[in-house]
């Protein structure tokens, strides 16, 4: 079981190294298959760990350390992997969905000059994400965290001739770095109190910290989670990240990296439970994001951005679930979301690929006729996303809403907001579906005769994910049947306040389904049948199109002042004071010399005069001192 975990971790790294060292000597196709194989080997390792753990019983997690990574004085952090219910679940998701997406990339990226670099980066990403989820202590988790941010930067900026892609990549990295910094601060507090970053010690220490301290630690962790998962207020990088190739968006910005924040909260929930306020703030932020992202998604015209905002919104659900204490529900939604969101991205990718890179939805109308498989897959994903039974999203999303309902008045408010979000989800998802796959042809559509379905390597993963989006939710139907909650209970037991009663479950499910369906119907009326007109509220429309002006605000509040400060330092201080100081010293010395020159008059009597005066002064001094 431990061996499986190590295999899972290092197989993708071996893949990256093989592709990097191979360079131009291996063909582009070989690089693709090498990468895919390494990720599937990782999946094998993950499955091995999972079944091994199941055989032992899920409460017998194991920690294995390869060597001491960092040690200073008595502080020690080893390169260790943890095999427990939570990590094995994440390992399976990351390597499984990751493997399907890398396989899909073989077809999608075919023909690109830099394919080998792409696959090296993809394997690196999978390695980083596995390091994050398998990390046996907080420091290794942070290492994986940072490397995931790095891989994201490399992949978003993959087409680096495009200034927009480069800018988006930098933005993503810097925002993630802010999260890294807050997490590091939280870790410093923990080290100061317990001199260790192992999970067990840190969680135990959290119980002994003062309230302010533990709140600060939780806040630091939350900062990292919010940055990585693109929740408000550190969300502005996610839509820009769509500059990367579509499989990248599917893997990193839907299924795995952005869910790392949720994983973090669930993993460190003992700390968050000591800082309940912060945990509830997390739930609140998630709900806020859920609504705002849903609203913004309504005005987007780029298909990938709609799905990106949808991701942001769905992660809001996961934050809500984890924040109120329903960890298993949050993780369940993470699982189903990985399936249907990756599916939506990959299906959108099939359309984009077929239309040679077109991403504007308005130009895609009527494509359903020539790409039937894609259309059905997309529909499956959409239905799962909206949460209609028996598709996957229904089981996971409603459980979260129910859990929130059970929590006190705050939870009820969040639950109502989440239900409003369900309506928005239905609305924007089917807006997208009908614009792209509806019967009416879009404006300026490309000739349809050339478009056709993609190659097998692209269709097979999409098919598998479509099936999973349908059946993936059947793994848990709380409150009747919850093997997942049971599996996770040794490490992430649901808080009592988040255990809904059967009535609450029923209410949540009914309302969520009805609202979701209502949204879909409205979307059909507006975009499908073109019967209803969209209400025109120009200021709101503009605000939403500008993503509520967050980008502009951050630019004005942070980026421009930093740049201005840097330039003014250089102009006002560095150049006049510091650099000139050397020349000033030289010039000062010269001037002093010039001044002293005037003593040398060349006239005898001046010198004699000085001699005489000096002697007289000395004589007086002698007399006085004597």
């Amino acid at each position, binding site marked *: 079981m431990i061996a499986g975990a190590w295999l899972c971790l290092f197989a993708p790294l071996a893949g990256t190294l093989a592709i990097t060292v191979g360079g131009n000597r291996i063909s582009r196709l070989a690089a693709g298959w090498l990468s895919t194989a390494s990720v599937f080997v990782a999946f094998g390792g993950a499955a091995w760990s999972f079944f091994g753990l199941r055989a032992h019983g899920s409460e017998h997690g194991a920690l294995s350390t390869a060597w001491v*990574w960092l040690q200073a004085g*008595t502080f020690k952090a080893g390169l260790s992997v943890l095999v427990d219910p939570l990590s094995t679940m994440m390992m399976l998701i990351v390597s499984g969905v990751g493997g399907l997406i890398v396989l899909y990339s073989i077809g999608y990226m075919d023909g690109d000059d830099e394919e080998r670099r792409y696959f090296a980066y993809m394997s690196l990403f999978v390695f980083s994400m596995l390091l994050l989820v398998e990390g046996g202590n907080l420091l290794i988790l942070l290492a994986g965290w940072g490397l995931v941010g790095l891989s994201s930067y490399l992949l978003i900026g993959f087409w680096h*001739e495009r200034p927009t892609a480069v800018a988006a990549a*930098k933005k993503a990295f810097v925002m993630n770095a802010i999260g890294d910094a*807050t997490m590091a*601060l939280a870790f410093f507090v923990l*080290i*100061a109190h317990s001199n260790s970053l192992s999970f067990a010690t840190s969680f135990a220490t959290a119980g002994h910290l003062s309230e302010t301290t533990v709140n600060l630690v939780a806040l630091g962790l939350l900062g990292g989670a919010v940055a990585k998962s693109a929740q408000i207020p550190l969300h502005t990088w996610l839509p820009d990240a769509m500059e990367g190739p579509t499989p990248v968006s599917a893997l990193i910005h839907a299924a795995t990296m952005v869910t790392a924040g949720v994983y973090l909260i669930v993993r460190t929930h003992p700390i968050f439970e000591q800082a309940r306020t912060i945990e509830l703030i997390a739930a609140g932020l998630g709900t806020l994001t859920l609504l705002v992202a849903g609203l913004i998604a309504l005005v987007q015209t780029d298909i990938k951005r709609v799905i990106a905002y949808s991701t942001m919104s769905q992660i809001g659900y996961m934050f809500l679930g984890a924040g109120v204490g329903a960890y298993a529900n949050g993780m369940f939604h993470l699982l189903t979301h990985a399936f249907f969101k990756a599916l939506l991205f990959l299906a959108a990718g099939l359309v984009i690929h077929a239309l040679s890179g077109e991403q504007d939805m308005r130009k895609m109308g009527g494509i359903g006729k020539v790409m039937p498989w894609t259309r059905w897959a997309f529909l499956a994903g959409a239905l799962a996303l909206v949460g209609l039974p028996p598709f996957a999203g229904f089981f996971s999303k409603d459980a979260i809403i129910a859990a929130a309902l059970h929590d006190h008045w705050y939870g009820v408010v969040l639950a109502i907001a989440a239900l409003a979000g369900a309506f928005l989800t239905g609305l924007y998802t089917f807006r997208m579906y009908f614009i792209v796959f509806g019967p009416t042809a879009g404006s300026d559509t490309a000739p349809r005769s050339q478009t056709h379905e993609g190659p097998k390597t692209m269709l097979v993963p999409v098919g598998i994910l479509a099936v999973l989006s349908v059946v993936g939710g059947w793994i848990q139907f709380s409150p009747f049947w919850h093997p997942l909650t049971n599996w996770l209970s040794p490490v992430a037991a649901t808080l009592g306040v988040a255990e809904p009663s059967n009535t609450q479950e029923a209410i949540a499910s009914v309302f969520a389904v009805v609202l979701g369906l209502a949204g879909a119907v409205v979307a059909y009326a507006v975009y499908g049948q073109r019967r209803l007109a969209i209400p025109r509220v120009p200021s709101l429309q503009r605000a939403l199109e500008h993503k509520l002006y967050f980008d502009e605000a951050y630019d004005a509040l942070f980026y421009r002042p930093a740049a201005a400060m840097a330039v003014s330092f250089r102009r006002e201080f560095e150049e006049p004071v510091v650099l000139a100081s050397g020349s000033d010293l030289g010039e000062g010395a010269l001037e002093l010399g010039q001044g002293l020159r005037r003593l040398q008059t060349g006239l005898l009597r001046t010198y004699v005069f000085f001699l005489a005066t000096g002697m007289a002064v000395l004589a007086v001094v002698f007399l006085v001192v004597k």
Partner: protein
Amino acid sequence: MSVSSFTSVLIWLPIAGAIAIWILPLSRYATGSLAVLISLAEVGVWIEQAARFDFNRTGLQFSQDAPWFKDLHVSYHVGEYGFSLWLVGLTVVAMAACIGYGFWVGRDRPRAYFGLMLFLTGATVGVFVAQDLLLFYAFFEAMLIPLYVLIGVWGGPGRLGATIKLLIYTMAGSLIMLAALIVYGLKVGTFDLVTGPTSASRWLFLGFMLAFVIKAPLFPFHGWLPDAYREAPPEVTAVLSGVIAKAGTYGMLRIAIAKFPEPAHYYRTLILAVAAAALVYGSLLAFRAPDFRGVVAYSSMAQSGLITLGLFSGTSLGYDGAVLQMIAHGLISVSLFLLAGTIERRTTTGQFALLGGMARGRPALATLLMTTGIIALAVPGSAAFAGEFLILAGSYQRAWWWAVIGAGGIVLAAMYMLRLISAVLHEARGSTVHDEALDLRTGELALLVPLVGVLLALSAWPAAISHHSFAGDAPAQIVQEQFR
């Protein structure tokens, strides 16, 4: 040859090599080969030394002690501790890479050039292993002389001004240090660092610190930095930033903190503030510097600030982190400046406005620059991050605001390093980038790949340095006991 004499071999072998090169009328090729051979031999001797070093024992190892001025109690006393072993290793590896670069590129007046580089090697090793104050001072000054000539003769267009500025600044610091050193030696009766007692004199502490702060350099004594870094030949800048700067921080640890504990405690907050200012100021200026060398130069100042922050935090985490960061940043600096050299050779400039799009068609250059840049910005998981993490964790134990400022430094580092990478590799092709500018050649790869390889290995196992710099588990204790 006994094991103890390895230390002296490390000092005098390159100096002997330098003298040989200056005397013998060898050809250009022979001179260069001899220099490269000697520098590689140095690395070999060091590796042998490291293999035999006992990391669990406190106290000086591989030491040699011979009286020099008996009546003043000045002796030729050399030896190594854990952390000085690593610094010597950094020196010999960096110098080997830089001499190799000089050989690859071809410098005119090769005998003068290689002689000076070898002399520089020996003198710098001497700084790190000297255990007698006067000997330390002698090597400290000897380290500077080849630098003045190397920058002044083989540098860029503004080299004379840069040299004069460097000279004025370092001389000022050194002379004050000399005064402090003499007063200290005469007062306590010996110049020996190992047996000498501590002193509570604040003026002496400040005298020493001034020299080290100018060497590091720290804000606001960094006036010599931008010009010297821009005008010197790339391999000399690499040595300056990667090794010579570490002599300053080494001096802070070995002399200022160990010999003057009460003044160090008294001035701690002030020095931490200066270090934090250097970190923030350097990072901000790096963020808007218009050229490759400018970014790395100001980033070096920021890193020196970070290392000083770690040293003066006075905690075990801080000391270990500072030593690790010295080594990691030294290697990073050398790699970055050598890469700058390769880029300048291909495009005649380091100005960002004229560069861009170099990644296309140059996978080796892109990979190496990307890897080094990413490690330089201390991405979690890298050696530089490990050092930074320990330093900030240690400084947090001193006061929370140092850690917060340092955390801000993390974000700024990401900003300026990514700007550097993108400005050179990405977006549209710059006006000075032509197709004839090829990817990295075998010679350049032979220099850079081992350096980056060591960095990656260090990133996989930072405890190699952080746990093996001070024997045992309590570096703060060991520093307090003056490493005995």
